[in-house]
């Protein structure tokens, strides 16, 4: 286990407004260490993006707020207790962030050079900006960086734009990079390039990366450790080999079976029945209970805590059973009739 850079403990994010607040993130804890790529994986509505946004308090709407938990950054202290001014010294400087759709984060009216240089203002003397920007664009593998600086976003391809955003995020040499679905909007061959770039940046700069994605294939390619989120909580956290070889949470097992790759045989297609519970009406007990093929009575009464297993922990009452995978196979496959 490498030295911890970023630690989130028992994070809670809820809606704010006229009605009763709804918990969108309910007690999530995670850690990112030096040189680690940590995956935060889950489907729509699981709260992974909210978790990522809350670290730097960059919520996309003022309808939500940080309601509890501790967020600590090495050599900086508690981010959750910081004022906006203090956070400004962290954003970009210690923690950089890259988002999903590059086109919405680039100003169409500013040249690439100017946009990347924006983050340098106040931190680096203006005379040094062009050299630094050039260096960054080169680092990102962008062709002809000198020319690139004078171009506008619409002249660039999706992959190039994403590289520019990564350059901007790393301009001040932060130790942590939060990447929220950085390749989802890109073509698959371009995705492969960007992921390779992120890995090489980790190797060269010793970055800790928190990678948010819904794609288990990306997780397998990139991550050292993984947090699987479901309905606002962490369902399972393991090192990547253990997660894929021997998952210990029925949701993870279901997700793995549902992932289609060119190697998946048609007869092995699987989908998890039912749907995610409405956060306004979470069931008693484990949130996955109604969709779980191996649920016990206990699962409908008490919510399981994270229980230690080899390589991590799983929030399942049956986490310690070695045969949970087989039990799942038996029940789920029966119920899942290919129509």
């Amino acid at each position, binding site marked *: 286990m490498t030295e911890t850079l970023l630690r989130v403990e028992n994070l809670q994010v809820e809606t704010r407004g006229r009605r009763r607040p709804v918990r969108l993130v309910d007690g999530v804890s995670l850690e990112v260490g030096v040189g680690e790529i940590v995956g935060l994986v889950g489907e729509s509505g699981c709260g992974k993006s909210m978790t990522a946004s809350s670290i730097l308090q960059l919520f996309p709407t003022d*309808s939500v707020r940080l309601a509890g938990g501790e967020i600590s950054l090495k050599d900086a202290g508690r981010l959750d207790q910081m004022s906006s001014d203090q956070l400004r010294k962290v954003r970009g400087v210690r923690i950089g962030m890259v988002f999903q759709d590059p086109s919405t984060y680039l100003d169409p009216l500013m040249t690439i050079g100017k946009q990347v240089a924006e983050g340098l203002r106040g931190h680096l003397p203006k005379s040094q900006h062009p050299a630094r920007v050039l260096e960054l664009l080169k680092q990102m593998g962008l062709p002809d960086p000198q020319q690139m600086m004078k171009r506008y976003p619409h002249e660039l391809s999706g992959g190039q734009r994403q590289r520019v955003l990564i350059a901007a995020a790393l301009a001040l040499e932060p130790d942590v990079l939060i990447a929220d679905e950085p390749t989802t909007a890109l073509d698959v061959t371009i995705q492969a390039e960007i992921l390779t770039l992120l890995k090489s940046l980790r190797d060269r700069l010793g970055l800790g990366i928190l990678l948010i994605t819904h794609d288990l294939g990306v997780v397998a390619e990139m991550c050292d450790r993984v947090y699987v989120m479901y309905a606002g909580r962490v369902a399972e956290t393991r090192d990547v080999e253990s997660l894929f070889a021997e998952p210990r949470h029925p949701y993870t097992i279901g997700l793995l079976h549902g992932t289609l790759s060119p190697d998946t045989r048609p007869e092995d297609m699987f989908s998890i029945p039912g749907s995610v519970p409405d956060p306004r009406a979470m069931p008693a007990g484990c949130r996955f209970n109604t969709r779980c093929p191996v649920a016990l009575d206990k699962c409908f009464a008490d919510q399981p805590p994270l229980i230690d297993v080899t390589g991590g922990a799983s929030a399942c009452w049956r986490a310690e059973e070695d045969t949970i995978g087989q039990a799942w196979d038996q029940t789920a496959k029966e119920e899942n009739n290919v129509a």
Partner: protein
Amino acid sequence: MTDNSSDSTLALATVEREGLRPPRNRFVEAWSGLSRSKIAVASLVFIILVLLMGAFAPLLQTNDPFAGGKDALLPPLSGEHLLGTDHLGRDIWSQLVNGARVSLMVGFSVAAAATVIGIIVGALAGFYGGWIDSLLMRITEFFQTLPRLVLALIIVALFGSSVTMLIGVIAILSWPQTARVVRTGFMSLRSVAFVDAARVSGMPRTAIIFREILPNVLASVVVIASLDVGAAILTEASLSFFGLGDPNLVSWGGMLQQAQQYLAQAWWMAVFPGVAIALIVLAFNILGDGLNDALNPRLKERA
């Protein structure tokens, strides 16, 4: 290829905050949005009151608005004359309530006519594009650049100044704005997935225009129509002020025209109709804005 994860929690958060539900009934949607803004509700109430005032004018008036008399230029609160009398002894209050009728009638008629014409022109231009769009847009631009006063003068000179003519003239000047809004709406919706699906379902083009696309554009149309009423009332008042109004009807603009000479002696002749015009136009503008917020909700932007 888009992942909806941040969108769905975001959407839920906004739903919880704003209390928005997706109602398909337009009235419910409009009301629930409007009711958030006290001033929008106040404007709506004011408009309804003026409507009632106009509707029941014959009952509310204290005197025949045309009947002059010896009591000229009486200030407000002189006996039975609540708001005083004008230079011919006619009761101001009675003129005001009758004028309300005319103003609102003109306002709504213009808005209705402009909306119908605007929808037809805008829908055809926006949906078909190409030369139809170019042709219709040139026509629209032509009507937009017509000088209001000159046009009104010409029409009145040729056809006389009846209220119908007035409505016609103002409508001719108002429809281009609606047409543009409708056109923009159609241009953005004509290649949306559900319209393609409608084509694949065998729906003929006219049906697609009026039953698939138009209902999705109506929100903007309603807003413009509301603003149109206010603008039409103001234009009518201006035209009447210049003497182009219907001499057989009492109108607020007409009252203003006659009040010009007596400004120093009888402020009430100008102030009451003037304030009435200002308030009703303001009310329609606020209502329009309120409807816009209610029917075209936006997610709050990041600070």
